[in-house]
């Protein structure tokens, strides 16, 4: 592949490649081109090849489709395309046929033959693979009619599930690297910073700091050598949007980093990525190589005097390295312990040089902003939080998956409309946002808009965008304990409040969830939380007590039940659980008697069995083994 040497060459290429993917044009994911379709290909079959779908079937579906198409001699008419994440993980693996806009769900390799013969050859859609709305059993074939997709607006995920990201051509077809071209040839450094600043694009990694301000500060910070860092150390439990972008649209991040480099005066970029994401690491390595070969990264980009190279640095399994200053130390090959701020990263970052550090999703928003302008971006979302935000919907929700929604949408809409409500008809109790740094928002606050300020004001935070839905079976004290356990595990150990303070908080929570807590413990939980928040060195410790504080605030009654009445209302705290046998369901099969390790169940064969509460160690073995659902935990 030869190097692209000018802006106009890039435009020519774009038109050429756009024609090749024109078949995938839809209103939600428009293919940007004035070109006419070319060639003999009539159908594109898009196969989600990201983690969720891949895990279920591996590449078997893709392979089966390819071989079926070959068997039927359709190679010249049908392209099978491996794409990034469609977002809708719950009913995966997903396949979409274009331009028919027919989405198939829960596809397996053995469905390939039917899809090819019936749909691709015969023109008859495979209805049994359509999405079935759980609420009304209605079959839906068009993606934009599926409630999950209805309210979504895709900016950062614009190419995910649409293009084969392993082919830079498809990215170029989608206006790829046009923003960089514009930044190099038509804009001054300061203009780029100002544009990003005007768009009020705020950091999607958690803090919400305006990216443009950061860029401008770094640009103005004196120094010859500067760095651009992409924080791809996504680690919040329950968040996987960055991973999806890196796999499904890596060039959007590479392009944005180069734009940032151009803006701040850096010639080097580093992507700090989790080692737990090997697939994405490979994809990035490959994409960087592709971009370099085409002259879109490396020396004299697009024939200009701007040079920018990008390298990868792998993390090694430390959550704290998502914190920017810890990341810097880790990227320097050291222990990932945070630095005190000031100095700011913009002044003294990587190797103590001015550095602009932004997160994957933030970067992914940059190219469209450069091309479409600040006003366009601000027209989406709210005034203080413009644009969109990706959330990873998970937990007790029907439609698990990645959603990108305009800021300001209500939490309830995200959960009930897009997310399809709670699994198994249970009652929603709370939504956890922001991971270990965030908080639990109770059901009655679900009408708040999703933006940085609103989430902060209810004691949670945007965080990186994990959104875990909790139902009546979840114990909020236990959830707080889960997060604190995570923090204790991941605290770097450098500063006292985080190292010792979070450990003590966890110990208090353990006391409470094992029935040994007192009301004084609740007071200590609160006062220690306050000190940990106000004295910890870095964001990890400063936000670590958020799950505790927010549950204490909104679910105090559950804490009280644990410490005063010594019961866990949801039954989730094993040590406080009370197992009992239901008279109407027990048939006296004696299985429970046999599995009980402490012989605390008695009863004759074919007669009601009884658990001796004093002896019971609450292991739950009896309940797990009962075939008649006769044992319950309260």
């Amino acid at each position: 592949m030869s190097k692209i040497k000018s802006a106009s060459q890039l435009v020519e290429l774009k038109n050429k490649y756009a024609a090749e993917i024109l078949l995938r044009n839809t209103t939600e994911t428009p293919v940007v081109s004035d070109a006419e379709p070319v060639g003999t290909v009539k159908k594109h079959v898009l196969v989600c090849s990201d983690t969720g779908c891949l895990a279920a079937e591996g590449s078997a579906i893709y392979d089966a489709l390819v071989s079926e198409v070959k068997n039927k001699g359709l190679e010249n008419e049908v392209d099978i395309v491996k794409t990034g994440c469609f977002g809708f993980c719950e009913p995966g693996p997903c396949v979409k046929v274009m331009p028919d806009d027919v989405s198939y769900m829960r596809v397996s390799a053995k469905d390939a033959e039917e899809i090819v013969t019936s749909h691709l050859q015969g023109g008859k859609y495979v209805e049994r693979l359509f999405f079935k709305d759980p609420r009304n059993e209605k079959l839906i074939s068009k993606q934009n009619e599926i409630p999950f997709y209805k309210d979504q607006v895709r900016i950062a995920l614009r190419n995910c599930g649409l293009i084969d990201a392993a082919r830079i051509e498809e990215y170029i077809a989608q206006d790829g690297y046009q923003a960089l071209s514009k930044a190099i040839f038509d804009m001054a450094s300061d203009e780029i910073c100002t544009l990003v600043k005007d768009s009020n694009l705020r950091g999607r990694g958690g803090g919400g700091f305006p990216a443009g301000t950061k860029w401008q500060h770094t640009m103005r910070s004196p120094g010859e050598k500067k760095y651009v860092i992409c924080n791809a150390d996504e680690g919040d439990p329950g968040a996987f949007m960055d991973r999806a972008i890196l796999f499904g649209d890596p060039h959007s991040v590479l392009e944005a980093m180069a734009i940032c480099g151009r803006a701040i005066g850096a010639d080097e970029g580093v992507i700090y990525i989790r080692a737990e994401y090997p697939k994405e690491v490979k994809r990035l390595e490959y994409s960087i190589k592709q971009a370099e070969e085409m002259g879109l990264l490396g020396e004299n980009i697009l024939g200009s005097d701007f040079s920018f190279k990008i390298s990868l640095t792998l993390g090694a399994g430390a959550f704290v390295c998502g914190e920017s200053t810890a990341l810097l130390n880790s990227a320097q090959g050291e222990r990932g312990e945070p630095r005190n701020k000031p100095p700011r990263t913009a002044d003294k970052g990587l190797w103590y040089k001015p550095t602009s550090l932004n997160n994957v999703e933030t970067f992914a928003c940059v190219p469209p902003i450069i091309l479409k302008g600040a006003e366009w971006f601000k027209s989406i979302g709210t005034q203080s939080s413009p644009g969109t935000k990706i959330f990873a919907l998970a937990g007790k929700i029907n439609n698990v998956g990645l959603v990108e929604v305009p800021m300001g949408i209500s939490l309830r809409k995200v959960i009930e409309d897009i997310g399809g409500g709670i699994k198994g008809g249970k009652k929603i109790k709370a939504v956890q946002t922001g991971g270990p740094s965030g908080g639990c928002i109770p059901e009655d606050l679900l009408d708040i808009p999703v933006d940085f300020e609103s989430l902060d004001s209810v004691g949670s935070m945007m965080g990186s965008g994990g959104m875990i839905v909790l139902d009546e079976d979840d114990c909020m004290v236990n959830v707080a304990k889960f997060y604190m356990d995570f923090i204790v595990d991941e605290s770097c150990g450098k500063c006292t409040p985080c190292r010792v303070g979070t450990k003590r908080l966890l110990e208090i929570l353990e006391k409470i969830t094992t029935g040994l807590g007192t009301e004084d413990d609740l007071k200590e939980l609160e006062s220690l939380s306050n000190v940990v928040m106000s004295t910890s060195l870095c964001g990890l410790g400063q936000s670590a007590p958020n799950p505790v504080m927010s549950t204490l605030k909104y679910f105090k009654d559950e804490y009280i039940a644990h410490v005063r009445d010594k019961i866990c209302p949801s039954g989730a705290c094993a040590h406080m659980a009370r197992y009992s046998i239901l008279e109407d369901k027990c048939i006296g099969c004696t299985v429970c008697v046999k599995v009980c390790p402490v012989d605390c169940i008695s009863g004759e064969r074919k007669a009601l069995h009884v658990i001796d509460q004093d002896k019971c160690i609450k292991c739950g073995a009896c309940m797990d083994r009962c075939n008649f659902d006769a044992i319950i935990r309260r």
Partner: protein
Amino acid sequence: MAEKNKCGQDCVQLSEIDVFIDKLEQQGSLEGKLIAILHKAQEILGYLPEEVQSHIARRLSLPPAKVYGVVSFYSYFSMIPKGKYVINVCMGTACFVVGADKILEEFEKQLGIKAGQTTPDRQFSLYALRCVGACGLAPVVVINEKMHGKVTLKDVSRIIDEYKEGDGR
């Protein structure tokens, strides 16, 4: 420079690490490359024994304590050999709320080891992992590179057997 060791398998592997370090050195400074080198060494050896850490320290002119400090900080690095199959039970929130802790317990019970340990026959190592980003499949268990989704308690013994018998393919 690379020291001559009592030769054998270890020596071959050390020289493999040296080749990697030499390559990095040719590309530029070795400054800041410690973690990358440790990754490579662990990829080659499966773990990072003392001698290897000391060797890397010498190559990078770093005090061995510094290398050890880094190795012991990151959970990805291990100083004990891992089993043939590394079972990672995802403990992300999405998995946790659907019972990942119980799944982990079940693996512990069936393998007779605790999380972080390896079976005496070095077949299995068991770990609790941070979110792997496959929340749609919660609870998730990753074994070597293969992902097992929506794992139930009853699946645990089947999964273990699959690896015991079928060598995991």
